[in-house]
């Protein structure tokens, strides 16, 4: 009964109802659209980092610390037997790191020299370009780094390194390929060469700094090596996106506030404007709790109808965003953000959509109910005369 009456009342209110519903639908749309971009970024970035760098997790030589470049020189050990088997089966790859210096166009640049098996297929790094039969050392570098140093494919650059005895050596290496990636952890100040060549250059046969594994099934204790699962390896990205999401929450708090204001205002106005109607309902025998239910339900119905209105224009728009993405307008690598390409493609999961609907519905229910408490104090005789009971 109450539902039928509430529906009649809000549909009978005409344009005012549809304006409120439109404002509420905007809240749903903006919250879902904004959050979708963050979810999309996180998904893209995590996927790209797994594809290009992390695969299923990594074992780090125990002294390796990515935040301390001074540890690089000594962060290497013999590849443990357990992992060697996986490497031989193509289910893991070993990577050796070494500090080095390159001199493009006579300028000096400190880099991390990384050795990787040219035949690996575990990560998307195009290591096939490291194979060379001309007794040259081939290297691959990322496009952002190459642009930064004005290096082109086919260029030769001087590389200087120090072997395990502390002896400096230098050699020309050929840039055999410049790859493009959104994952800065495989490109920033890094030069990739063949692992056997680097092991020979450093006189560290069969040694590695990290071992990247295909999936987490190899998660086991290995002496001298620390296992880092994807949760740990992606923590920086997760934290950064979390921080950005909190920043964006200001936007959706504003949208929620707008929705709350629209409904609160409507309810207060409705109770004031419809007090004679409330008095009439009381005179006809409607109890106060029923009238409170009626007005609260009218508020909630606005939020429910807004879901449908939001769906009418929101679904095509959100689909459009998903197809074309949001153009970032500048090179995301300059921001130092992994996983951000030229465009950001949002992801709208059920969790996000349902979560937003529930959040807005709960908020609107509370905001719809609060002003109706005035009805509980309203005397029928005052209401019939169009007065509010003090």
């Amino acid at each position, binding site marked *: *009964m109450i539902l*039928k*009456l509430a529906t*009649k*009342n809000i*549909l*009978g*209110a005409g344009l005012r109802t549809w304006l409120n519903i439109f404002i509420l639908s905007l809240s749903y749309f903006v919250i879902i659209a904004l959050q979708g971009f963050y979810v999309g970024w996180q998904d893209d970035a995590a996927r790209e980092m797994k594809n290009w760098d992390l695969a299923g997790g990594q074992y780090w030589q125990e002294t390796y610390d990515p935040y301390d470049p001074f540890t690089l020189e000594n962060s290497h050990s013999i590849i443990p037997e357990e992992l060697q088997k996986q490497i031989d089966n193509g289910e893991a790859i070993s990577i050796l790191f070494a500090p080095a210096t390159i001199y493009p166009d006579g300028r000096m640049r400190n880099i991390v020299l990384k050795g990787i098996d040219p035949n690996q297929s575990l990560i998307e790094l195009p290591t096939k370009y490291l194979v060379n039969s001309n007794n040259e050392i081939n290297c691959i570098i990322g496009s952002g780094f190459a642009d930064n140093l004005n290096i082109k494919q086919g260029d030769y650059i001087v590389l200087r390194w120090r072997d395990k005895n502390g002896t400096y050596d230098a050699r020309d290496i050929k840039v055999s390929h410049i790859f493009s990636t959104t994952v800065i952890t495989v490109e920033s100040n890094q030069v990739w060469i063949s692992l056997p060549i680097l092991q020979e250059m450093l006189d560290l046969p069969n040694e590695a700094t990290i071992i990247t594994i295909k999936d987490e099934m190899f998660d086991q204790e290995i002496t001298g090596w620390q296992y880092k699962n994807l949760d740990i390896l992606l923590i920086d990205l997760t934290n950064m996106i979390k921080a950005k999401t909190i920043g964006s929450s200001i936007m959706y708090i504003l949208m929620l506030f707008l929705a709350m204001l629209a409904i609160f205002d409507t309810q207060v106005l409705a109770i004031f404007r419809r007090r*004679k*109607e409330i*008095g*009439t*309902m*009381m*005179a*006809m*025998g*409607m*109890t*106060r709790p029923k009238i409170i239910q009626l007005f609260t339900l009218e508020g909630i119905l606005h939020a429910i109808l807004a879901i449908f209105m939001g769906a009418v224009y929101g679904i095509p728009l959100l689909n459009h965003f998903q197809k074309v993405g949001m153009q970032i307008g500048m090179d995301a690598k300059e921001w130092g953000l992994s996983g951000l390409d030229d465009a950001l493609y949002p992801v709208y999961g059920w969790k996000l959509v349902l979560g937003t609907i529930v959040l807005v519905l709960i908020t609107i229910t509370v905001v719809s109910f609060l002003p109706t408490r005035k009805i509980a104090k309203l*005397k*029928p*005789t005052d209401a*019939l005369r169009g007065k509010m009971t003090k």
Partner: protein
Amino acid sequence: MALIKINEMFKSYPIGKGKFTALKNIDLKFEKGEFTGIVGPSGSGKTTLLNIIGSLDVQTEGKVEVMGNEVKSLSAKQSSRLRSEHIGFIFQTYNLLPVYTVYENVEFPLILLGMSAVERKKAVSDALKWVGLTDKIKSRPAQLSGGECQRVAIARAIVKKPSLVLADEPTANLDAENSHHILKTMKKLNEELGTTFIFSTHDAKVISYLKRKITLVDGKVSNDEIINGG
């Protein structure tokens, strides 16, 4: 047994630090089937008396019994139930629900009673026939004249076949022709359905239809007479 019994009833309202007594020492009885007018000038306490009889308000002192229910002792829920089941109201300004059609306005009290859709349809149709508005069932109040609005209000008051209809200045906003039409309709309902009607009015036209006239002056009953052979 009297439908309504009022004994030594007073009604006061606080005004600033003092109080204003709207009804003073009222002793009245109303029997089933009465067609009674409470007349008197503005501010004489007519509406207050109707509100107390309709359990929309309570007396300050004394006893008011409506269909065996002591008004003051009723809870909000009980008084809502009393109004819903036994009392119909007609207001000077019609008080129709603006977003509802004529049909829906008349149907509203039946929805509150929890009546089935089939029963409601028949009752609404009968009530609209009584007031001669079967051709306006889909109109909204804004599309009706004042007389038509008041006829809808009458249909809404009688649709549940209440024992008592309380009408507060029902003809005050109507022209002479509409007033007579409305009064004839109510008189017919009173005679054919046996519904008790109590009006508040200071309209001379109404008085000619009354069976009983109670005159209120300054909150006191100054005269209570049977007229028109009622």
